[in-house]
C-alpha cells in the first residue's frame, strides 16, 4: 500500500483503511492449518504438530517458555527496526526469536539448520535462501514490468498516464494486502495454537480455535490501520521517487511473486518481496533515482534480523529460566512491554503520521544519520 500513498492514488487514511479491511478478510480466508510453522526451523514439535514429550514434562512450561522468549525477542527486534524506519521482516524475527530461545533451552541440536535432500527445509532452506533469492526475483520482475509499461505508454500525456494507472494501482495494492493477510496471519495462529496445546487448553492439531483466528485477524488488521507510517514513508518515498505506472508494476510484481511462491512452498517474507519490487520499478525507469543508501541500510537490517532477534530471544529465555516459574514468564512479558513503550515514547519525538508521510525525502538530508520515520506493520 505504501506506493499507492506515495503516488497519491489513495489518501493515506483511505489506503490504510482499505488495506486493514483486506488484511482482515485475508486472515479469515487462511483456514489452512499452519500449526507446524515452527517445524521448519526448530525441533519442538513432532511432525504431526504435537509438542515433543520432553518439553511437556512439567505441564508444558518448558515449551511455553521457549515460545514466550522467542516471541518477545521477535517483537523487541521488530519494533526497534521500525523505529529506525526499516521494514524488517516479522517472519524472520519470529523464526530468529524462536531459534535463539531454542538454542538457549535445548542447545544447538534443537535447531534444524539445514534441511535434508532436495526438499527446502531448516533455517537455510526455509529462511536464508528464500531471503536472498526472493528480493532478486522481485527486482527482475518489477524491472521488466516497469520497462514494458513505460515503453507501451510512451506518447500518452503524462497527466493522463498518472491518473489512468491509479486505478490499476489500487487494484494491485488490494490484491497484495489480501495475500499479506492470508500469508502472515497464519504463522501467528500456528504459534498461539501451539502454546494452547502446550498448556493443555487445546488438543486438535488440525484446527485452530475460532477465537485465535479472530484475534489474529483483528490484530493484523488493526496493526495495518495504525499504519506503520515510518515504514510506509521509507517504502513509498525513501527508496525510489515513484510514479503511478511504477507503483502498479511494483505491486503486481509483489503479488505475483508472493502468490506463486506460496503455491510452490517457497517460503518468503512479504517485506523482502515488496522492497525488491520497489527497487526494480526504480531500475526499470530511465532516469529514476534509486537511493541505494536507504536500500543498503535495509539490507543490513535484513541480514541482522535473524541473528539479533535470536540473541534477544535467547537472553529472554535465560532471564525467564533463571527467575523460573510463572514469575519468569511474567518478567519476560513486562520487559517486552517496557521495550515497546520506550520505543513508542522515543518515536513521539519525531512523529510521522498520515499528515507528513509524503513529505519530500531529501528535505531531511541535513540530519540523515538520524533515520526518520514510526511504528510499523509487517
Amino acid at each position: 500500500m505504501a506506493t499507492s500513498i506515495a503516488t497519491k492514488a489513495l489518501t493515506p487514511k483511505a489506503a490504510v483503511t482499505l488495506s486493514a479491511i483486506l488484511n482482515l478478510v485475508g486472515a479469515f480466508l487462511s483456514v489452512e492449518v499452519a500449526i507446524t510453522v515452527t517445524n521448519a526451523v526448530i525441533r519442538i514439535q513432532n511432525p504431526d504438530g504435537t509438542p515433543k514429550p520432553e518439553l511437556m514434562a512439567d505441564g508444558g512450561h518448558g515449551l511455553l517458555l521457549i515460545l514466550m522468549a522467542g516471541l518477545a525477542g521477535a517483537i523487541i527486534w521488530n519494533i526497534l527496526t521500525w523505529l529506525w524506519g526499516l521494514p524488517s521482516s516479522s517472519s524472520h524475527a519470529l523464526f530468529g526469536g524462536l531459534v535463539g530461545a531454542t538454542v538457549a533451552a535445548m542447545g544447538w541440536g534443537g535447531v534444524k539448520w539445514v534441511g535434508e535432500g532436495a526438499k527446502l527445509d531448516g533455517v537455510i532452506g526455509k529462511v536464508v535462501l528464500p531471503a536472498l533469492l526472493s528480493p532478486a526475483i522481485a527486482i527482475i520482475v518489477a524491472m521488466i514490468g516497469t520497462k514494458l509499461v513505460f515503453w507501451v505508454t510512451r506518447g500518452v500525456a503524462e497527466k493522463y498516464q498518472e491518473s489512468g494507472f491509479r486505478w490499476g494501482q489500487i487494484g494491485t495494492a488490494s490484491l497484495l494486502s489480501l495475500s499479506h493477510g492470508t500469508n502472515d496471519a497464519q504463522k501467528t495462529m500456528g504459534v498461539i495454537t501451539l502454546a494452547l496445546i502446550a498448556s493443555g487448553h487445546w488438543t486438535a492439531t488440525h484446527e485452530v480455535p475460532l477465537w485465535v483466528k479472530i484475534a489474529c485477524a483483528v490484530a493484523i488488521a488493526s496493526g495495518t490501520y495504525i499504519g506503520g507510517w515510518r515504514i510506509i514513508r521509507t517504502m513509498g518515498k525513501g527508496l525510489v521517487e515513484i510514479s503511478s505506472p511504477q507503483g502498479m508494476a511494483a505491486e503486481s510484481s509483489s503479488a505475483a511473486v508472493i502468490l506463486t511462491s506460496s503455491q510452490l512452498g517457497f517460503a518468503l517474507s512479504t517485506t523482502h518481496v515488496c522492497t525488491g519490487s520497489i527497487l526494480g520499478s526504480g531500475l526499470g525507469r530511465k532516469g529514476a533515482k534509486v537511493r541505494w543508501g536507504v536500500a543498503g541500510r535495509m539490507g543490513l537490517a535484513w541480514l541482522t534480523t535473524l541473528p539479533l532477534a535470536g540473541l534477544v530471544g535467547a537472553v529472554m529465555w535465560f532471564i525467564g529460566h533463571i527467575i523460573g516459574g510463572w514469575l519468569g514468564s511474567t518478567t519476560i512479558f513486562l520487559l517486552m512491554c517496557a521495550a515497546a513503550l520506550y520505543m513508542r515514547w522515543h518515536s513521539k519525538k519525531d512523529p510521522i503520521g498520515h499528515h507528513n508521510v509524503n513529505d519530500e525525502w531529501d528535505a531531511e538530508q541535513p540530519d540523515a544519520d538520524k533515520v526518520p520515520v514510526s511504528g510499523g506493520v509487517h
Partner: protein
Amino acid sequence: MDQLFAALDASWRVLLVGVVLGAGLPTIYALGIRALAWGTGGEAEVHEAGVELKPHLLGRLIAYSLFAFVVLCVLLGIGYIVAHGLGMTITFDGIVPVFTSK
C-alpha cells in the same frame, strides 16, 4: 548443496510465472491505457500544438476489453487465494479454471 539447488529450482519457476503475471498483466493494462488515450483524444496524448486529436470509439472498446481481461485475471488470483484457504486448488486443464478439492 542440495538445498541450494532446490532453492534455485524453485526460483526460476517463481521468476518465470512472476514475469508472465507480474510483468505481463501491467503491460496489458498499459496497452489498455494506451488504447484509451487514443480513444479519448483531446489532451490525453502527447501532440503538437494546434492539432486537435479526435476521439476513437474503437480505442475505447479495445481499452475496456483489455481492462476487463486484467480484472478477470485479478479475480482469478483472489479466487486462487480463497480456494487455497479452503483446501482446494484451481486447475487450468482447459481454458476455464476448475476448482477441485486437494
